């Protein structure tokens, strides 16, 4: 057992402690808060590097390197509920990615949030989020995973609603929270079922974990309803959690709205890490997903579902992104689309394929989001791409890094990480035995990705600056919704002058991320599939000839073709013929108004949900209200009335029958007493008179007694 595996818990606990300390400190101590948060992240990053190097050292020894540690937490009857953590290549690579990206985004936030009055609160939440995310990554136990997962959801809620004074932000936070809860319900059910089936929630425990062969065999052979293996059913339930968190197709609606949060939040949570948690969950329980009676396979029912959901999400979100005008919304839909790619990769190609795209995507999407944050910051909180333009000359560094991120996302061949990871996914999809449709969907998505990114960059950085001095008054109703930025954190000055380059504290993380967005691709090329081998515990050979194999080369050429087509189309439509004013209709809108409207309104998914789910919910609530008010309430009222009537009867009997005699007697006694008391008036002579009368009576009595 290595030292770092034993003390892996330190990595999430450090930011957690930082978060707690920040929470109890005064709100004005900005420097302390930032120092604590960044310091804890630096330490966590260093520890993550230790963990990563430990896995590197042991890489190549018999199978996948994996060390687990844990402790007993709660006792239920005779069983102990264990919590624990695991160190394996998957954990290590995620740890490094999460802590590194978090660190960079923290640094960026120092500049971006510098003028926000809730600076400390922001860092408190961010640290808490980082802690929870790292906890998700190291968890060796579905329960611990779930706990951290829910904390992640909570911090997501808190950070989306960070500017809660904006109604749209509050609503978005609520929407995100509730939507992800739908998925989490599936995860919870899957977890409970898993516990019922295997008696443990530990992933790996020397052959007794629920992801190890003995438990998997039992679950595969055990059939449940509709001829489905238990493993499939549990896998699908868990996948539901991933769908919610990663914004996959039915539950993707929250992710674009989540862009109401501060841009670093969007970068950290809704691009790089949290939404990747769903993908990571599928990767973590991949043995369960791929469990098949004849050994692990890529075409189990659960993985087919993952594949289809991923492919559909990829194409769907990419098409929506084409028609958006908010810079962050374009990136948000791009994120949804890329998460679909990851799911697709997991479904068709296994853990390594999906995770490779996750890692590369984390870097270049964080880069893009931070770049968009820099743009927004420089343009005085303007988020509408139609009102930007020509920023190339105002913000050269931002432009350069943004262009790198854009090319990586678009999958520009050979030099950018996105190309290699996406190519690997497409390659795996091409080889999927079940169907070729996901492959074609993926190719179309790649084309659209290149297209909308080109459109965005062309609109933002090229042409002329379109909104100088008149942006606030003439906002169209469409953008109004997304434009109510926080008034308090305008960088440095309030004037609406020229766009400006962002400070160094924001630029440096961009540059670092840009470097990684380029370099990371080379660890997973077909010629040197180190990443694949690292995750699967196989040594990776260096083989250039694989690049030129017919299938691989053809696919690479094909995907490069799609990418170039997309880039060219985008440039032709948006780059060459720059729009002159912000109000000018989109080129596509002129060409295909109906399609554009459909895309602009995100296929009306929100409206459909409003019309179906929300309306049904409201209707059900009304029905319940009716039942409650009239049926159950009626019964209750009936009982009440009967009780009231009975008690009135009792009261009547009591008052007019039982009490009457008693009261009369009492009254008589009382009056008699009052009458008697009048005799005792304190006057001696009255007493004497009474004595006289008594004497008479006595004498008469004596005489009477004598006579009879």
């Amino acid at each position, binding site marked *: 057992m290595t030292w770092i595996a034993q003390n892996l818990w330190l990595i999430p606990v450090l930011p957690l402690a930082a978060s707690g300390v920040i929470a109890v400190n005064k709100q004005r101590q900005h420097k302390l808060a930032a120092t604590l948060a960044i310091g804890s992240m630096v330490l966590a990053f260093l520890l993550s590097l230790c963990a990563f190097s430990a896995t590197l050292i042991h890489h190549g020894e018999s199978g996948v390197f994996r060390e687990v540690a844990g402790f007993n937490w709660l006792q239920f009857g005779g069983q102990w509920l264990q919590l624990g953590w695991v160190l394996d290549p998957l954990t290590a690579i995620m740890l490094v990615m999460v802590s590194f990206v978090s660190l960079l985004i923290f640094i960026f936030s120092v500049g971006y949030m510098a003028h926000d009055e809730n600076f400390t609160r922001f860092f408190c939440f961010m640290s808490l989020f980082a802690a929870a995310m790292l906890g998700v990554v190291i968890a060796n136990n579905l329960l611990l995973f779930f706990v951290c997962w829910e904390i992640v959801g909570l911090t997501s809620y808190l950070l989306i609603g960070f500017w809660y004074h904006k109604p749209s932000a509050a609503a978005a936070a609520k929407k995100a929270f509730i939507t992800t809860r739908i998925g989490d319900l599936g995860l919870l059910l899957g977890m409970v079922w898993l516990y019922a089936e295997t008696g443990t929630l530990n992933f790996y425990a020397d052959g007794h974990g629920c992801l190890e062969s003995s438990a998997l065999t039992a679950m595969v052979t055990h059939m449940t309803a509709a001829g489905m293996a238990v493993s499939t059913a549990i896998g699908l339930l868990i996948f539901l959690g991933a769908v919610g968190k990663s914004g996959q197709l039915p539950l993707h609606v929250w992710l674009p709205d989540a862009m109401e949060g501060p841009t670093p939040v969007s970068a950290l949570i809704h691009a790089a890490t949290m939404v990747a948690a769903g993908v990571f969950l599928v990767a973590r329980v991949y043995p369960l997903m791929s469990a098949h009676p004849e050994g692990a396979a890529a075409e189990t029912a659960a993985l087919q579902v993952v594949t289809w959901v991923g492919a559909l999400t990829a194409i769907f979100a990419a098409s929506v992104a084409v028609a958006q005008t908010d810079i962050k919304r374009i990136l948000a839909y791009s994120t949804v689309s890329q998460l679909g790619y990851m799911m697709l990769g997991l479904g068709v190609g296994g853990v390594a394929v999906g995770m490779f795209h996750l890692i590369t995507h984390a870097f270049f999407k964080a880069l893009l989001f931070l770049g968009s944050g820099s743009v927004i910051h420089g343009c005085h909180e303007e988020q509408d791409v139609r009102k930007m333009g020509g920023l190339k000359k105002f913000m050269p560094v931002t432009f350069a890094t943004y262009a790198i991120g854009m090319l990586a996302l678009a999958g520009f061949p050979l030099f950018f990480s996105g190309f290699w990871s996406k190519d690997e996914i497409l390659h795996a999809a091409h080889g999927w035995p079940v169907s070729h449709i996901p492959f074609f969907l993926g190719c179309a998505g790649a084309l659209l990705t290149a297209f909308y990114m080109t459109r965005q960059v062309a609109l933002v950085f090229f042409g002329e600056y379109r909104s100088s001095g008149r942006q606030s008054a003439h906002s169209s109703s469409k953008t109004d919704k997304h434009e109510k930025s926080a008034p308090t954190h305008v960088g440095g000055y309030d004037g609406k002058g020229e766009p400006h380059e962002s400070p160094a504290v924001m630029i440096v993380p961009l540059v670092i991320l840009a470097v990684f967005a380029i370099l990371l691709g080379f660890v997973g090329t077909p010629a040197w599939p180190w990443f694949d081998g690292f995750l699967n515990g196989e040594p990776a050979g260096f083989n250039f000839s694989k690049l030129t194999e017919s299938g691989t080369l053809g696919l690479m050429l094909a995907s490069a073709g799609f990418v170039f087509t997309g880039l060219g189309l985008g440039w032709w439509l948006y780059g060459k013929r720059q729009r002159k004013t912000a109000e000018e209709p989109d080129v596509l809108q002129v060409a295909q108004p109906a399609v554009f409207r459909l895309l602009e309104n995100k296929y009306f998914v929100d409206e459909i949900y409003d019309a179906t789910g929300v309306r049904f919910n409201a209707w059900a609530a009304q029905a319940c209200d009716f039942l409650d008010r009239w049926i159950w309430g009626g019964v209750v009222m009936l009982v009440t009335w009967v009780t009231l009537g009975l008690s009135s009867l009792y009261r009547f009997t009591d008052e007019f029958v039982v009490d009457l005699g008693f009261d009369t007697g009492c009254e008589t006694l009382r009056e008699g007493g009052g009458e008697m008391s009048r005799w005792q008036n*304190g006057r*001696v002579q009255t007493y004497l008179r009474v004595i006289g009368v008594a004497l008479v009576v006595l004498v008469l009595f004596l005489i009477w007694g004598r006579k009879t």
Partner: protein
Amino acid sequence: MTPLQGCLLVSALLFAIGLAGAVTRRNAILALIGIELMLNAANLNFIAFWRYGAHPEALSGMMVVIFSIAIAAAEAAVGLALIIAIYRHYKTTNLDQINSMKG
């Protein structure tokens, strides 16, 4: 009418006069005098019954009267002392103004 009845009638009348005085007069001293008269009426009865009774030699009636006179003396002394005390307290001897003798 036998002498005994005569005595009894005189005694009864004396008693009634004493009672009437004690009951009707406002002055506490007069009430005390009335009571003295009633006591003496009783004494007269004792003497009469002693004189005309069956066994005058036993002297029982006379003994009772002697004790009664002694008690009456004590009663008069205490009563008058009370009246003086009351007078000091209330600055009056009018019985209708002294009405605190109740619960």
